[in-house]
């Protein structure tokens, strides 16, 4: 915890990003507690604090209150989904569907229940909800219930804590300041993550902003990972050498113990 806190302090990039002006007069000004996540040997998840303010030249508009959506997503990749069926008394994989693109991690935080924050059409346009973040255009038509496969991706990853929708977890102050914390689980994959902030009024997006979060292995993790990819032969020999040394070491240690 202390380490994590120190890290956030050290990395506290007060970098703020001005969003490209959209039709409205309200803009997001954003700060992140850290713009990168270092995966160390004892990495057990992290928490990224996302905070910001709404910049506006005019007084706060009347009508629907300002709502904020924060979405952090991991690198996207294709996923092969297989379904089991009972054949000859045993359960075997039969049909499979390639889901073209699904983020490895996807967390949404909203300032109110999801349905109230953004309308369905805006959700479709900005691909905000978990179901919309997954793309499976090429789903084979001959397979019964192809939609079930995309739903399976969401269900499995939600159970693994990789996908989450947490409503009412963005605190909005005076329709101007907002902040939220996104939990990053321990089982993160490397890559360029993106954090998206959407400001909405009455279900319509009035401003949005996107920024990157770099998730990288560091130190020993980085070294071992790189070695295994670039020098696989040496890496293999090293693994064997460690195995033999450990085997011999334990044997020698136990002999000493017995002789004493």
């Amino acid at each position, binding site marked *: 915890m202390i380490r994590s806190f120190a890290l956030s302090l050290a990395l506290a990039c007060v970098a703020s990003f001005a969003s490209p002006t959209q039709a409205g007069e309200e803009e997001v000004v954003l700060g992140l507690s850290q713009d990168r996540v270092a995966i160390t040997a004892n990495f057990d998840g992290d928490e990224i604090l996302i905070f910001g303010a709404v910049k506006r030249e005019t007084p706060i508009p009347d009508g629907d209150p300002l709502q904020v959506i924060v979405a952090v997503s991991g690198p996207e990749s294709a*996923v092969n989904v297989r379904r089991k069926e009972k054949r000859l008394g045993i359960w075997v994989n039969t049909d499979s569907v390639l889901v073209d693109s699904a983020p490895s991690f996807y967390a949404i935080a909203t300032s109110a229940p999801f349905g109230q924050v953004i309308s369905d059409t805006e959700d479709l346009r900005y691909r905000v909800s978990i179901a919309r973040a997954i793309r499976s255009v090429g789903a084979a038509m001959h397979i019964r219930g192809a939609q079930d496969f995309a739903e399976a991706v969401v269900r499995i990853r939600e159970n693994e804590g990789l996908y989450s929708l947490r409503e009412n977890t963005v605190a909005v102050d005076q329709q101007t300041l907002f902040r939220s914390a996104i939990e990053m689980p321990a089982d993160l994959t490397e890559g360029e993550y993106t954090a998206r902030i959407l400001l909405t009024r009455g279900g319509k997006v009035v401003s949005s902003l996107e920024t990157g979060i770099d998730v990288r292995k560091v130190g020993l993790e980085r070294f071992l990972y790189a070695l295994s990819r670039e020098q696989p032969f040496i890496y293999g020999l*090293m693994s064997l050498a460690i195995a033999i040394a450990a085997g011999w070491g334990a044997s020698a240690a136990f002999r000493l113990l017995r002789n004493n």
Partner: protein
Amino acid sequence: MQIYLPIAEVSVNAFLLLGLGGIVGILSGMFGVGGGFLMTPLLFFIGIPPVVAVATEANQIVASSFSGVLAHFRRRTVDIKMGMVLQVGGLIGAALGVVVFNYLKSLGQVDLLVTLCYVVFLGVVGTLMFIESLNAIFKSKRSGGARAPRRQRGWIHALPFKMRFRTSGLYISVIPPILVGVAVGILAAIMGVGGGFIMVPAMIYILGMPTKVVVGTSLFQIILVTAFTTMLHATTNYTVDIVLAVLLLIGGVIGAQIGTRIGVYLKAEQLRILLALMVILVCVKLGLDLLLMPSELYSLGAEGGH
């Protein structure tokens, strides 16, 4: 204490891994099996990706087998000559096994075939050993410990290329041990295990080796076969996770030392009946997985992977 595994890309509890390694290590030392057939499913269960589990397990078996074999060397219960002959077969088999594995992979359904392999072999080997050792225990009780003479006068003695294996007290042809080695090598490559659970009964029942040298000899030949497999996985699939291996093998080597010492106090029949029970247990568990409706019908895989 959570540890992030660099290749598997998951975070796991270090003490859990040490404990698993220790338990499997004890069994490995007691029975002369690498323990892969237990450890690999256990690793799947705690969430290690199967490809990483299989490859890393091979590396861990090298360590626990090496630790175990040193204890057997000191007790002179390793038939080095027999081990060498088995290894020649084992390497041929492992190379063949990789070819077979890749062929099955191209057909799809490789997971199912691996599981079926496990169920069939564990079931047959476990049941046979269980019946045999039960008989042996009854016989030794009735006749007051006198052992039934080995009936090894069959076709094995009619084969050419005879060789004397002094430690085992055998004078047999090299063909059966090489064939046993090939068969075990193929299975080792397909099932991702050292093959001890096949090797041990094969040495007892097919080659007629005395039980006391079987364990040490099995460990001895497993080392080379699994070292070969480790290198193969490390250089082709990049799936050996060294951090996972180190955690498992710290527990494993200590366990193997304890196991070898426990093994000394048990009678050969008791040792065999325990191993048989364990093999049957794993078989039943894997069999049920195939027969019962899984709680999650869908599974995710990388594109093109399995």
